[in-house]
Structures are given as C-alpha cells and as structure tokens.
C-alpha cells in the first residue's frame, strides 16, 4: 500500500510543506500572527482564518488532487477512521498550524504533512502523510495518520495517537466474500483438489509401507464384494455402540477410567485407518479395471501405484467436478449428491473388506492350482491285460488330496 501511495505523493506538482519550512514559520510566529488576526473578520470560520494565512499554499496538479480525494474517500470508509470535514476543507499537499494560533478541529491534511505548532481543538488528521506535533503544540482530540506516522517532537495530544497502515478503506463483509460465485468456486476447487492430492500421497504411503495389507483388502474385495458391502454397513451401524461399550467397560474398572481418552483416540484412529485402507483398496480395483496396465510396461508395484492414482482420481474427480460448478448451486448439488453416493458405496464396501480381511492380514483362501491330469493311463482298460478299472480322478478330488 505504501508503494502505491509513493507515486501519488510524487505526483504532487509542488512539494508539500517540508519540516524545514515549518521550522522557519515557527521562528517568526509574531510576524505572521498579525495578518492572521486581520483576516479573521473576513472569514466565516474564524479559526480557519487565523491559520489560513500561516499555511503555505501548495499548488497541486488536478491528477494529484483527484488521487488524494480518492484516498481521503477511502479513509472515510475505513472502520478506524475519524470523522472528516468536507473534502474542500481538507488541505491537499500539507498544512501547518503556527504557534500561538488556535484552530477548531478536525484539521485534515492529505498528501503532505500536518505540522502542529499551535493548538488544535479537536482531531488532527493526516491522510497519506504524517502528523508532526512540535514542542508547545496541543491537540485536544486525536492525532491520526492514515498511511503515515504521528511524530511527537514535544507537545501534547489529549486523545489517542493513531496510525493506520496496510489496506485502507471499507472492509469487505464476510457475507460478501462468501457470496461471490468466483470466490466460492475457487475455494471449493482448491479444497477438493487438496483432498485429491492428500489422498494420492496417502495412497503412495500405504503402497510403500503397508502394501501387503492393501493387497489383503483388495483380495477380500475382489472375492466378496457384496459381502464386504453389507459388512461395511453393519460396521457403520456398530461403531457408536462398540465405542460406548468400550468406554463402559473401561469405566467399570477404576484404573481403566484413565485409559478412556486414549481408548477413544485409538478407536477413532483405527476406524479412520480401516476406512482409508478400504477406500484405497477399492480405488485400486477401480483403477485396474478402468485403465488396465500393460503387464510388460510396469512392475507389479508400478502397476498398483498407477491403478491407485487412477482410482483415487476417479473418485475424487467427482468431487472436483462438483466443486467446479459451485457457481451454479443446482448443478453443484446434483453432482455433489452423486459424488456422495458413489463415495459412500465405495467407502462402505472398502470398510467391510478391511473388516473381513482383519485389516488385510487375512487373505481369502488361495485358489490351489489344479494338477494336470494325464489321461493316457486312464484309458479304458483292455480286457486283454486284465487290469482292474479304477475311478478316474477328477480335478476336485485331486485338490482334496
């Protein structure tokens, strides 16, 4: 903001009243006081008339005045602003209140410093510049500098000394921020994209450090999808009662009471872990089925990673898609509903599979490869050889043996 103000200040055609000039004024107060007193009768505002001839008139370009007016108007809208007089009563380019004079406040300068040597009955305000309170000066109200500083070289300020920096002007209401369609879309997209990234990173972590458990859940899902889904629903329904039972069981034993907070945390972590494992397993299956990897191109782990990323992207992609329509509430609601439904089914089945496979530690019974049966010795025996006919082994009987 300060950098934005700098060109504004530089745009002033004639430089504002500098501290040296102000000091020069301060050195000859009596000489200047007389004409000020003479002009008092000509002005409707005596206090202003007293100091009017003591101020150095600064010539500003129209552009500079317009910029300063805009800055003053922004300050008017600022929650920390004090009440300002009309713009035509604001000294553009700076102002000085000579020693021995007394003016009625508020006294406002913009784009140049406000030097106070005398007395201001009210507030002394500088916008885009400084308030400098010289020895012997007195401000009965507040000394306020917006995008500037209040410098005390002596003198007194009865009210508050206030300096405002950073953004100036009205504060956008939170409601306005929330209602902006572009903003809400951007926010929703950022949130869903972040979740996508987090899940992909989690998938990589699970694949690296808990690949075997993931394989176990995947096996369980592939073999028993329907059962996994119903097990998932049963698990969801049982979560709260199981937690309550756990707490009651711990509370029964006096020492167990101390473990309750830890047990709750452990329970929640375990459930979240199972849900995540199950979701990643179903994402992997989805990824494998949607985009099967060419067997020669990827290693087993590479193929699993690819399937996971594809699967997670598919499920989270639904959420990203819904977020992209945050500017259209009806479309967003429909898409979000679809995303919720699909994600819930996937997560439920995944959770069930994770439960059935004991977190991936129990695999489905492996399919035993059937031994090849040599049919030649079991040709129909010929009566010439006199061999007794025996039962021909079938693949199932071989497996039993």
């Amino acid at each position, binding site marked *: 903001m300060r950098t934005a103000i700098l060109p504004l200040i530089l745009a002033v055609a004639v430089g504002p009243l500098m501290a040296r000039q102000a000091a020069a004024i301060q050195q000859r107060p009596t000489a200047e006081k007389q004409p000020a007193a003479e002009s008092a009768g000509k002005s409707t505002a005596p206090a202003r008339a007293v100091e009017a001839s003591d101020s150095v008139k600064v010539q500003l370009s129209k552009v500079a005045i317009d910029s300063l007016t805009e800055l003053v108007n922004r300050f008017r809208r600022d*929650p*920390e602003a004090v009440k300002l007089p009309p713009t035509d009563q604001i000294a553009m380019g700076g102002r000085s209140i000579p020693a021995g004079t007394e003016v009625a406040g508020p006294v406002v300068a913009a784009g140049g410093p406000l030097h106070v040597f005398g007395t201001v009955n009210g507030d002394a305000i500088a916008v885009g510049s400084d308030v400098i309170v010289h020895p012997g000066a007195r401000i009965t109200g507040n000394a306020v500098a917006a995008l500037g500083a209040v410098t*005390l070289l002596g003198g*007194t*300020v*009865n*009210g*508050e*000394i*206030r*300096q*405002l*920096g*950073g*953004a*100036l002007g009205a*504060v*956008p209401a*939170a409601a306005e*921020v929330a209602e902006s369609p572009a*903003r809400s879309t*951007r*926010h929703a*997209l*950022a*949130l869903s*994209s*972040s979740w*996508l*990234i987090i899940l*992909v990173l989690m998938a990589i972590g699970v694949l690296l450090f808990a690949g075997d458990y993931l394989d176990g859940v995947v096996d369980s899902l592939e073999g028993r999808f329907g059962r996994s889904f119903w097990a998932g629903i049963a698990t969801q329904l049982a979560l709260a009662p199981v937690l309550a039972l756990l707490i009651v069981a711990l509370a029964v034993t*006096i020492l167990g*009471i*101390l473990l309750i907070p830890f047990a709750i945390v452990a329970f929640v972590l375990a459930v979240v872990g199972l849900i995540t494992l199950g979701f990643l397993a179903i994402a992997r299956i989805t990824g494998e089925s949607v985009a099967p990897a060419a067997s020669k191109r990827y290693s087993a782990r590479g193929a699993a990673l690819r399937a996971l*990323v594809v699967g997670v992207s598919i499920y989270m992609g639904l959420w990203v898609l819904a977020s992209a329509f945050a500017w259209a509430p009806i479309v967003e609601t429909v898409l979000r509903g679809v995303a919720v439904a699909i994600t819930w089914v996937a997560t439920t089945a995944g959770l069930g599979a994770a439960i059935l496979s004991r977190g991936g530690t129990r695999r489905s019974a492996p399919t035993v490869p059937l031994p090849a049966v040599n049919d030649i010795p079991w040709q129909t025996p010929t009566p010439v050889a006199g061999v007794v006919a025996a039962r021909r082994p079938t693949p199932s009987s071989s497996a039993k043996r």
Partner: protein
Amino acid sequence: MNSRARRFFVFAHAAAASLAASTAAAQSWRTLDVARQLKDSSPASVQVVYGMGKIGVRATSNPLLYHMQLRYDATRALPKHTFDATARKLQIGVQKSEVRFTGRSDSDAGHLQLELSKSAPLDLDLDLGAVESDLDLTGLRVSRLRVGSGASDAKLRFDSLNSARMSLLEISLGAASFRGDRLANANAQDVRVDAGVGEVELDMGGQWTQDIELKVDITLGVVTIHVPSDVGVRVSLQKTVASFEHEGLIERDGAWVSRNWDSAPHKLRVTAKTVFGKLAIDRTGR
C-alpha cells in the same frame, strides 16, 4: 522424472497455488498503532481481549499510558481501543475474532504487542483465546492481575519485584500450556490457578516479601510448582485419581510440609484440588 510424474507435480503445484490464492484473496491485512500520552500516574484498569494470534505485553519507558501495535486481518477481526478517561478504564485488543480455516501457518496469524506504563498502578485483565502469549510484566505496577486463556501457550514473567502490592493473581486456563516465571516478584499474597486440561509450571522464585497462598485447581493435567529451598511449603491436596510428587515433604496434620516449615522466613501454602491430574513440588530452587 518421466513425463507422467512431471505432469503430476505440475498439477500438484497448480492446486497448491490455487489454494494459496483463494485464501490470500479473502484477507485484508492492516496495521494499527494506537497510543495515549500519560498525563498522571492515577490507577487505571486495563482489559485486554485477544482471540487468535500472538500477543506480547510488556512495560514501556516512554511517557505513554499504553501503546498497542496490532497487525490483523480486517475481514476476521475488529480492533478495540477505548479509553474512558473518567473511569480510567482501557479496553483494548480485538473485539471480533472469527476463526476460519485458511491453511495459513502461525506466522501469518495476527499479532498484538501491548506496552503499558510503568508509572500507573494497573488492574490488568487479560482475556485470551487460542493465542500464543508472552506476558512480560517486569517493571509494571500491577495491583491485580487476571489471565484467562482458552487453548493457548502462555508465558508470564516478573523479572523484578512488582512495586505495587497485588491483591490477587488469578490464572484461569482451558486447554493450555502455561508457564509462570519468578512469580514471587508479582508481590501477590493470593495466587489462584484454575486449569482444565494442560500443563502448568509455576516458578515461585523471585523476591519474597510476604507469605503466599496458592490455590490450584486442575482437572486433567500436570502442575509443577518450583519453590526456592529457603521457603517453607505446606501442601493440602484433594485428589480423586491423581498423583502427587512430594519428595522432600513430610506428612503432618493431614498435609504435606517441608522440613523447614517452622523456621522458614516465608511460607507458601498450597491448596490443590485435582481429579485426573498430577501435582509435583520441586524444591531444587531453580
């Protein structure tokens, strides 16, 4: 890195950038610097309200009654700075502090630095929320102090003796970590600590001018009280399921007392109540 991986990282960066952009756009950071000249050294009451961010309180040598430097997000916070000259009552801090998840780090949170006059006796009331506070009250004349803190990390210190006698030092904590250094310098006869969940460390070092009554009430957490070895200690404890480290103390008349209890020039009487907590008395004289 193959082209697929490169594309993934480009996507990740784009998503992160969009997140940052969306949060940055919703902010309006401002600074506010307010001060008031010191006219006399009449007592004043100061109420500080600050909900989120970092806060520091210390004494100033400048002829100011107070000086607050505040950095805040105007979309979430509304500064408060009113002084009733008649009642000599200052209310300062942040009036509204909306907590909103933005993904920002703590360094991007607001900051309040408050300097108070060394001359005027102050009745100080600090109402803090989820903040990180550093309350260095060294050099201030504090006649009463109340620190209320929600979920925060608070430090309070008195490096030199408080020149005003403090009627009450009250610390009320929610789920917080609190550390009080050289609390004997607070010059308070009555010290009360009420903590919900957290870790409280009270260093009773400093200059002892009187006996101190310390009341500690903690639900779940650890309270450690460091006491100089030349100070006599008496601990009266009500505990439900709690532990008490009483090394160097002996049981007498239903309380635990230090061996120098009868001869000590100054005494600390601790009345503690805890449910699932732990109370430890450290007499190593740190």
